[in-house]
């Protein structure tokens, strides 16, 4: 058994939405500092898995620990240590890019994050004026600001232009250099496969 606690130790996770089991009996382990790709088509349960592990939603069955914390009893501890890049941008439309980031941390850090994702020139524009790609970059800035030790990235390449792809790969490399664990859910297996250390394939809610 590795000395440090496992980054993620999940067993028999399952979650239903009404009549359908979006996720059923998923178990896996991940050592810290690794990049894991969760691959699968749409509806395979990738998003549900990431949302359960980041404590956005509860599992109906099964249990797991993230960063050594139990997902039911120590949700706050997990939330402090993790960040989730979700399908939804988590942004306030009527607030500016800078104001959205200043909810998380002080002005200096917000400006640095904006610069990192190439949005400094639009810092004081309302998010409602942003394109989908710019919103994705701003959501990335939100993830970086939280300095997560475990980052959950759900379809990070969606809606991005080629420059955006390069940015995402740089950010993931930067997170890994910082010792963070990164879980990337994607259906673009070839792109992520190049730099992933581990892989988990899902098919309609089960481990393929």
């Amino acid at each position, binding site marked *: 058994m590795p000395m440090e606690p496992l980054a993620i130790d999940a067993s028999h996770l399952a979650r239903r939405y009404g009549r359908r089991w979006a996720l059923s009996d998923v178990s896996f382990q991940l050592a810290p500092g690794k990049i894991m790709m969760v691959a699968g088509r749409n509806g395979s349960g990738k998003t549900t898995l990431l949302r359960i592990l*980041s*404590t*956005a*939603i*509860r599992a109906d069955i099964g249990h797991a620990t993230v960063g050594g914390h139990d997902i039911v009893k120590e*949700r*706050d501890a997990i*939330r*402090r240590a*993790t*960040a*989730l890049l*979700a399908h*939804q*941008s*988590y*942004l*306030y*439309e*009527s*607030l500016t890019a800078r*104001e959205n980031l*200043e*909810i*998380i941390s002080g002005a200096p850090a917000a400006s640095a994050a904006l610069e990192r994702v190439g949005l400094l020139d639009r810092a004081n524009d*309302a998010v409602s004026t942003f394109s989908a790609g710019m919103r994705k970059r701003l959501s990335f800035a*939100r993830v970086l600001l*939280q300095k997560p030790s475990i980052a959950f990235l759900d379809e990070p390449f969606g809606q991005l232009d080629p420059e955006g792809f390069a940015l995402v790969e740089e950010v993931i490399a930067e997170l890994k250099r910082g010792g963070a664990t990164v879980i990337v859910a994607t259906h673009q297996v070839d792109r992520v496969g190049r730099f992933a250390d581990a892989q988990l394939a899902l098919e309609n809610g089960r481990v393929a």
Partner: protein
Amino acid sequence: MIAALRKEFLLQWRTRAQAVAVFVFGATSLLLFSFAIGPNAAALRQHAAGFLWLGLLLSSTLTLSESFHAEMENRALEGLLLLPVSPRVLYYGKALANTVQLMLLGIALVPVMVVLYDAGTTRIPIVLLIIALGTAGISAPGTLYSAMTAQARAKQTLLPLLLFPLIVPVLLASVKATSLAILGDPMDQSSAWLALLVAFDGIYWSLCGLLFDRVVED
């Protein structure tokens, strides 16, 4: 808590056009009430407090049902919870912001009442206190119900349907206290009504804070 409040007031400042529209709605409803009674000045003056609070209550559902609109867009609420921001801080920030907005609305409606119903009063501080306590009584459960109905269909009809029966004590106490302030309070009964308002606020500001995290967690 400060960051939460700052965000709330920023949000409200950005959507201040809506607040003006809600004020116009309130003023129009006060006008409509007088048509319902007729031009009889004495009767209007008698019911002035009741009309003020009915107008305020009806417009409060507009501000309250919008109060979680920003959070529901792009699932910003979940984004906050995952930072983590404690649900309790989120609730009290939102409830306080709603109270302030309803207080401003109430204060803005008072002159309309004074003009329309000839219901002038020299006891301004008492009226302000009643408005503060009454709007706090409306926005404590109102904020919680707005968070609940934001997750349901037909939230425009659900929020008043759930809120109005609940705040009957607030309406009774506020109307009584305000009319005592306007029409004179010989036996000093308003202190009893203010005590009732304080009790209601105490119960619901704590109870709703306790229950809020169950309402927003998934």
